[in-house]
């Protein structure tokens, strides 16, 4: 059953990829898309310079954020945990906004690295406040409170330095607006984290048996947890540096996938990436086509889908 849902997911993903290239402020017929990749075609700019890189970027970011969420949930075993609920996303966002506010002339290529620092600090902060053994709800509340703190710092920075506001605004609600080849090339090196995460799939299954059993199978549980969380933080930071904190994606995608394919990480992790990519492509498609030429940030769409889901999860959590 689990394997059978993979081709269906792939098929949906392909359909959305094509739809994202076709629809927008101007609709392009299906046969016009392939022509649009040739230099000199009437749709060349729309397809090649604008929609294609943005679509690929949405797919990658969705996949990476979902993967980060699956890693965090796999390690912490807390259904409400994900990088955005725990404040890691907003920590990265704050660092990025801080960097752009105080070094407006600096090279944008360093942004992911700065965001990584921010999300690491946010993760350490959470760990320092909660320690190792805190309840599901308490961890989530502390994370949410930290996220609110970072968000209010971001607001404050933007209000105090209104000159750089336009730059920072692109980062705030999680949007793919105006993202293109340049941002795509910034994200590419960070894709190396994906195979690292998939490589951890098998040991991740084993730590669910309990630390002692995992130990007897030759797995160092704490080391595994640390490396999984570090990879999750890296994935989150690189995505936030490029698109801003897109909420609820890392929370919802792993849950949906677990319902589809079950909990074996070898299948769960790749499927989660597919589901995350599908969700973000869908969110961006709706955000672009709901009221053209006006565009909503994709982060708004993910919150509208994700917040009710979070409430439902909360309702079920014992």
């Amino acid at each position, binding site marked *: 059953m689990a394997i059978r849902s993979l081709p269906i997911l792939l098929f949906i993903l392909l359909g959305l990829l094509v739809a994202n290239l076709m629809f927008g402020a101007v609709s392009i017929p299906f046969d016009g898309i392939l022509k649009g990749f040739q230099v000199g075609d009437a749709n060349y700019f729309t397809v090649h310079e604008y929609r294609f890189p943005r679509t690929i970027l949405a797919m990658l970011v969705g996949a990476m954020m979902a993967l980060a969420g699956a890693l965090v949930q796999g390690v912490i075993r807390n259904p409400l945990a994900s990088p955005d609920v725990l404040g890691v996303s907003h920590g990265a966002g704050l660092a990025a906004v801080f960097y752009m506010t105080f070094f407006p002339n600096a090279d944008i290529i360093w942004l992911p690295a700065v965001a990584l620092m921010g999300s690491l600090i946010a993760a350490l902060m959470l760990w320092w406040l909660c320690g190792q053994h805190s309840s599901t709800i308490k961890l*989530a509340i502390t994370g949410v409170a930290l996220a609110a703190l970072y968000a209010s710092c971001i607001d404050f920075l933007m209000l105090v330095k209104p000159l750089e506001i336009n730059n920072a605004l692109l980062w705030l609600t999680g949007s793919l607006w105006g993202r293109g080849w340049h941002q795509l090339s910034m994200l590419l090196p960070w894709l190396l984290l994906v195979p690292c995460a998939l490589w951890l799939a098998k040991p991740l299954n084993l730590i669910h048996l309990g630390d002692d059993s995992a130990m007897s199978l030759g797995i160092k549980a704490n080391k595994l947890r640390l490396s999984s969380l570090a990879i999750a933080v890296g994935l989150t930071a690189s995505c936030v540096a490029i698109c801003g904190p897109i909420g609820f994606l890392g929370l919802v995608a792993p849950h949906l996938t677990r319902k589809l394919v079950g909990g074996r990480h070898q299948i769960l992790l790749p499927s989660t990436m597919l589901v995350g990519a599908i969700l973000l492509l869908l969110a961006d498609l709706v955000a672009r086509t709901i009221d053209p030429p006006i565009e909503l940030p994709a982060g708004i769409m993910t919150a509208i889908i994700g917040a009710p889901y979070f409430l439902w999860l909360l309702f079920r959590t014992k």
Partner: protein
Amino acid sequence: MITVRLSFIRQCVALLLLLLICSWVSLFSWSVIPITPTDAIQALYNMNEESIAQHIVHDLRLPRVLIGLMVGANLAAAGVIMQGLTQNPLASPSVLGINAGAALGMATVSSLAPWFGLLGTSVAAMIGGGIAWALVMLLGNAWRGGNEHGRLVLAGVAISALCAALTKAVIIIAEDQAAGVLTWLAGSLTDARWQTFDAFWPVCILGLVGAMLIAPTLNLLQLGDDNARNLGVSLIWVKLGGSFLVLLLVGSAISSVGAIGFVGLLVPHMARMLVGQDHRQFLPIAMMLGAGLVVLSDTVSRAIIYPAETPAGAILALIGAPFFIYLVRKRTL
């Protein structure tokens, strides 16, 4: 008993004096056109028509201070009532989604039907806040009582996120209204005028008197739901009446100056530290503290990047969030 009353009266007098000083300072400080402290006093009772400074005090600064005082008192009273009803130390209008719901109601009405005016938007704020509050209470299992504190807060946070996303969507789609609404979302007293004051003060008095009337009942609720019922408290009516009061207080405050958060969370705890758990005493103290806090934040908000202004709500959020984290750590959730 008599000594308690005396010390309470002393505290009230001291706080009132502080409030007066804060308000007075707020009338003349950080103005682009210089205002002397005496200008601020003179403009109140014997205005010199020639002086621009005194005109600024009378037409801009005075309504701003008065509205700030009322908003602070309202939000603090709402926070006290909410913490009393839910028996949850983290309850407050901003944490449990009422602010975000009210903002959504207002943004929807002001962009879809701008001809409704102030009354329409206030009613929309109350309805939006009410829907959010009801959802949070239902999803957070609040009616079952017991130790569902954390769940209630997370439900509030999720509803807030949902409302905030919808609000932004409404604002972006109805672009022509956006600029004002964005400042307003942060919560700012910049646009407080006499017109707002005239609409606001009757509702404010009504809400605060209502809060004082419900105070003795809130004392009984602290004994737990069952004991309160045995003492003859009708829980349903208290919770419904209290919720309505909260919506009246928060809705009117938010429709006047925007979504100012964390006053309702911070102030009740400060007031408890001063006078203890008796609502008949700590409710008035909380009102005064809240009023002072908002006027103070507004004064600071003018000073930070003088001559420009930052919304007072942003400053309160910066103070409030760490305090919230401290409260979460202190309690066992």
